[in-house]
């Protein structure tokens, strides 16, 4: 009985993670400029992979009775590093003057840099 319940939870977590990854890919294809694309890719893909790794950890805990700390370590590592990687790429994109999309009406960072340079 407990096996069926754990299988249902694991399957739900893994399918949810895969669906979130598809959402990330759809955003990366559809959104207009690099900043919004990174917004989709870094958040959605990170949550998806965390769901999938949690489901895997639960599955191996149920079948083998062994708690795999490597998977928990991987979840923590990806949760810490993936937003940092997105931040670095977007800062490099802004400093190398990658254009924003045409609907952008407000750029606070440019005004701030203008104030500090004067």
């Amino acid at each position, binding site marked *: 009985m407990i096996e069926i319940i754990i*299988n249902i939870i*694991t*399957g739900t977590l*893994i*399918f949810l*993670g*895969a*669906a979130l*990854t*598809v959402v*990330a*890919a*759809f955003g*990366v*294809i559809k959104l207009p400029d*690099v900043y919004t*694309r*990174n917004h989709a*890719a*870094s958040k959605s*893909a*990170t949550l*998806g*992979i965390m769901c*999938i*790794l949690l489901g*895997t950890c639960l*599955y*191996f805990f149920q*079948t*083998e009775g*062994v708690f*795999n700390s*490597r*998977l928990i*370590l*991987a979840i923590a*590592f*990806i949760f810490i*590093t*993936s937003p*940092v*990687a*997105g931040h*670095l*790429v*977007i*800062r*490099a*994109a802004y*400093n*190398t003057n*990658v254009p924003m999309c045409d609907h952008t009406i407000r750029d606070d960072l440019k005004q701030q840099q203008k104030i500090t340079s004067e």
Partner: protein
Amino acid sequence: MFSFVLHASLVLIALSMIGFIYRVIKGPSTPDRVVALDAIGINLVAITSILSILLKTTAFLEVILLIGILAFIGTVAFSKYLEKGVVVEHDRNNH
């Protein structure tokens, strides 16, 4: 039923990987490609994790952590190269 869910998730992840590859090929600027490649690395972690459930082995769990670390290091190196032109700076006097 459980195995069907796993296979369906593999198909979904493969489809999203095709989407990221489209962005890598078409992306107008270099940061677009770097963002898509980072997401492809994250997707590889997901595929490895689901395949290790399907093959019923825990031998690939180190590979998951390894791919995560390598994707992070690659993205940081790429963005530092884009911003400053070098990856490792050797100039000791200019700090």
